[in-house]
């Protein structure tokens, strides 16, 4: 069983390493992740949000709905932990 798991892990690793040859180089300033909307956030963050910290302004201003979803996830996880760990009273 563990041999089978090890073989499938090695095969998956080889497939993933083969797939990285299409990915952008490390530290490339023209990679697709660093174009389109990300330089706009960096250039306009001071005049639109008055926050020099670009990570804070993106998290709380430009992507505020994502933060709302994140708090919903925390609430749901806490609720399900309480519901799972209840002890039921024995009814006789």
């Amino acid at each position, binding site marked *: *069983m*563990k041999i089978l*798991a*090890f073989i*499938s*892990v*090695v095969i*998956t*690793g080889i497939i*993933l*390493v083969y797939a*990285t*040859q299409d*990915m*952008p*180089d*490390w*530290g*490339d*300033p023209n*990679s697709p*992740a*660093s174009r389109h*909307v*990300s*330089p706009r*956030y*960096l*250039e306009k*963050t*001071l*005049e639109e949000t008055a926050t*020099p*910290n*670009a*990570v804070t302004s*993106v*998290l709380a201003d430009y*992507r505020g709905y*994502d*933060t709302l*979803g*994140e708090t919903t*996830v*925390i609430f*749901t*996880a*806490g609720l*399900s*932990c309480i519901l*799972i*760990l209840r002890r039921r009273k024995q009814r006789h």
Partner: protein
Amino acid sequence: MFDLILSKYNYWIYIVMMMIGFYAMIGKRNLVKKIIGINIFQTAIILFFVSTAAKKGGTLPIIEHAHGHGAHSVNAATYINPLPHVLMLTAIVVMVSTLGVALAIAIQIYRRYNTLEEDEILEQRKWSHNLPR
């Protein structure tokens, strides 16, 4: 060949870490070890995304000389990309939440079957007569 390794070795390191977590998820029998494997896998994915945000010669994404000046032009190529860092903050929170729920489920399994080994739990379920259907 050497510059292929030099330009992509960050992805390869995190693929190795992902495969370690993947092996722990499917190769181990104890439930807590499987949960730790899930956590290692998620951490490797988070680090993988954060490594795509780097730029050569870029500094932290905090605009310098911001106070006391008016509007001045910002060259976006001198700051690293802030967007994967922000998305991975949410991913870290989701990771911790799923870890909490998984451990609560493991506690409840232990209360019911008195063991945390996967093969013993399956054995008890095979020979039990009052399973919920």
